């Protein structure tokens, strides 16, 4: 039973990490909270479903979604954030919240307020080890998130692009003095983060077999709790924070059968950890 819950928690947690990564990457370079990122996540679910209805192939839907959501991210960066960056931080924050609400309404107007089914079968099959049964969809979530996170890790730690991205998040001005085109690096952060969020949207849509206009609402603030917990701007911290919250939610609520609001737990964990580590798990002072 506990191992089964463990598998469930890891699956949810790795999706949380995928959503929150874009938020932390954008915070890392621009020091703004990109709330509309959760809108990109919901957009991803809708795009994936749309593609899937035309051509019922999960992998194709995932690939097209990632391309489409990375475009969406770059458009947001260029036309929403870039003109507002010179203003006080509260301005891009409010714009971002406003855009997020607008996106939810646009999804509702176009696709309707209903929950749409996303019955994709990636054709992986489930696995059973003794008492632990990893379902088809859980296996899918693991496979996709682990490959995406591994790719991100490779890019960040082994390539020149990764070096430039890390340098830019530490000191944008000095990175440009080193000859790094920081405008392009900022766009790259939006591109990668939004592609990951779009992928997460498709995974969640398939995992719960549901896509709906406000599906980004809870991830919007939960991702916030995760990046604060992990340490703002820290990529490993965000992955750790996502897994912790996913596991915490599932284990606590699956084992102790009390009527406890599941979605509040992220913040309770965040508050407890911040009491002991004010800069988050892997954050810097």
């Amino acid at each position: 039973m506990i191992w089964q819950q463990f598998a469930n928690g890891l699956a949810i947690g790795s999706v949380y990490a995928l959503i929150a990564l874009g938020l932390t990457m954008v915070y890392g370079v621009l020091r703004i909270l990109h709330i509309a990122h959760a809108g990109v996540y919901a957009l991803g679910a809708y795009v994936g479903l749309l593609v899937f209805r035309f051509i019922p192939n999960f992998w194709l839907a995932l690939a097209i979604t990632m391309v489409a959501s990375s475009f969406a991210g770059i458009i947001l960066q260029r036309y929403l954030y870039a003109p507002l960056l010179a203003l006080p931080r509260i301005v891009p924050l409010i714009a971002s919240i406003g855009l997020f609400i607008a996106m939810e309404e646009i999804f509702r107007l176009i696709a309707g307020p209903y929950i749409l089914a996303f019955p994709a079968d990636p054709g992986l099959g489930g696995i059973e080890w003794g008492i632990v049964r990893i379902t088809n969809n859980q296996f899918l979530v693991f496979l996709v998130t682990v490959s995406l996170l591994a790719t991100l890790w490779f890019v960040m730690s082994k390539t020149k692009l990764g070096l430039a991205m890390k340098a830019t998040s530490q000191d944008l001005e000095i990175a440009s003095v080193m000859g790094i085109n920081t405008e392009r690096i900022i766009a790259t952060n939006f591109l990668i983060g939004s592609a990951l969020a779009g992928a997460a949207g498709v995974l969640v849509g398939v995992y719960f077999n549901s896509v709906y206009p406000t599906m980004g609402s809870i991830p919007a603030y939960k991702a916030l709790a995760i990046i604060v917990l992990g340490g703002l701007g820290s990529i490993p911290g965000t992955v750790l924070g996502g897994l912790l919250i996913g596991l915490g939610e599932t284990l606590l609520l699956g084992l102790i059968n009390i009527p406890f609001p599941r979605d509040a737990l992220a913040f309770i964990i965040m508050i407890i950890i911040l009491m002991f580590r004010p800069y988050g798990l892997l954050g810097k002072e």
Partner: protein
Amino acid sequence: MLSVEKVDVFYGEFQAVREISFQVQGGELVTIIGANGAGKSTILKGLMGLESCERGKITFQEQDITHMPTYQRARLGITLVPEGRRLFQDFTVEQNLVAGGYTRTDASAVERDLQRTYDLFPILKERGHQVAKTLSGGEQQMLAIGRALMASPRLILMDEISLGLMPKYVNEVFNTIESLHREGVTILLVEQNARKALAVADRGYVLETGRILIENEARGLASDPRVKKAYLGG
């Protein structure tokens, strides 16, 4: 090599320097001295493109760079050793140096320059895998200079590099500047420590409240009664 004509640079909303004109020839070591707040750092930021230049013209190697973005100026061969060092704090010493050579494509030349930097500052080699923020102030300053050298720059702008260093390191840093100058590197040095700066420079400018007051050979400036009185302690 570098020519600045009647340039105004703003620091935020505030006009920090007015109608500044000066030149730096290839291979020269030129210094700009002046009191705190005279606008010395703003000039360097304007040259690097970190502050915008509202009027006038900046030419580098016959090319107008007045409105060019910072990273393109870096790719033309201008670099900055910034005030307060501003290392990549979470990078190791070696990663900082590699970041300094970011724009270069010739891997073997970068490797050669890495060795050259380590020869120049043996302590950096010893600390190669240490994270930059764990270094002492003097070591950090050497790393900041080393990082700038890794770009194989044509012109190095140095901003207050003796500020906050122990006297032992101040001497070491100025010795390094002198030896770079002997190797033919072109340097524009901005300093509060006028005595040291004039001792190593070829020429100098005196900046007061955003304007250039005096221009002369470094030796001439060092013996100028006005400079002596205001900047060299009488």
